């Protein structure tokens, strides 16, 4: 289950997901997470770091995005590729996408927080609230009166 390392000199951090899977991750990748960074500063580095809020499939996804994000910095093609993969995931499996966002937020990975937010924002632009609820399976929790008031108040935004 370990993420392989190309560099033998790179330090390996061991992490455990909420469903008990153990990951070995290069320190440079793990430190993208401010949560893990803080935990290591608190001297948890020699132990397995638990991640009680992240499941293994989602953690795989996070690591994959972290690595690709590092690669894309000077590479427009990689950037494009990562973006289209993100958009594809959002359209085909919004449930996983929301879990990814939740995990990235919990792990406090600023670069991926902005990246996933940007993709979702681009997806949301120009769409009606009703369509967004439908596509992203978001429950309308307004009362009819509240919804009518908000629609009226923001009428100009729907023209």
């Amino acid at each position, binding site marked *: 289950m370990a993420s392989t390392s190309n560099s033998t000199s790179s330090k390996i951090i061991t992490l455990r997901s909420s469903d008990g899977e153990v990951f070995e991750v290069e320190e440079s990748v793990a430190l993208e997470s401010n949560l893990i960074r803080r935990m290591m500063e608190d001297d948890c580095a020699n132990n397995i770091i638990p991640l009680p809020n992240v*499941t293994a*499939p*989602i953690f*795989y*996804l996070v690591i*994959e995005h972290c690595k690709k994000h590092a690669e894309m910095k000077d590479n427009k093609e990689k950037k494009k590729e990562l973006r289209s993969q993100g958009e594809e*995931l959002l359209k085909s*499996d*919004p*449930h*996983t996408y*929301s*879990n*990814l*966002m*939740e995990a990235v*937020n919990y792990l406090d990975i600023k670069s991926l*927080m*902005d990246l996933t*937010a*940007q993709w*979702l*924002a*681009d997806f*949301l*632009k*120009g769409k*009606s*609230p009703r369509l*967004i*609820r439908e596509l*992203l*399976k*978001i*429950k*309308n*929790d*307004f009362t009819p009166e509240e*919804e009518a008031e*908000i*629609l009226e*108040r*923001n*009428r*100009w*935004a*729907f023209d």
Partner: protein
Amino acid sequence: MTRRGNREGEEEEDDLFSRLPEGCISNILSFTSPRDSCSLSAVSRLFHSASKCEHIWDRFVRSGCSGFLPLEEKLQQVSFSSKKDLFFLLCDPTIINDGKLVFNDDDDDDDDDEECVCFAEYFIGQNDWQEVLYVVGERASYYIWKTTTELATNFSF
């Protein structure tokens, strides 16, 4: 590589994105536009609440968001006490002159003045960005700046 998410609990399907913190939603909204942010506030309570976050308007101001803010260089001359005030200021660039508010006092139409005062009173008591944008969106902002200087002192620029 495609991996499927955690599928346990079908009821979660109806609650997608609702577990995200409000700050996360407001971050998403800050990547849209003022118009989209107001439109998206009608999606759910979480989106509605997130759309009021100052962080969003901070970003819109900084980016000189299209459709609202035609100026950039004048920005440096303007003093303001909050991002809300700044965004407010930028909605009508004609009010800015050497960093001070300028009021058009050359309009002698009494009815129009009365209307201006009404708008100004409305805005002064308003702390809700949705309200502000609603009126700005109706292109009423022009009138607000035609009000008297007495009323203007109530703005905390």
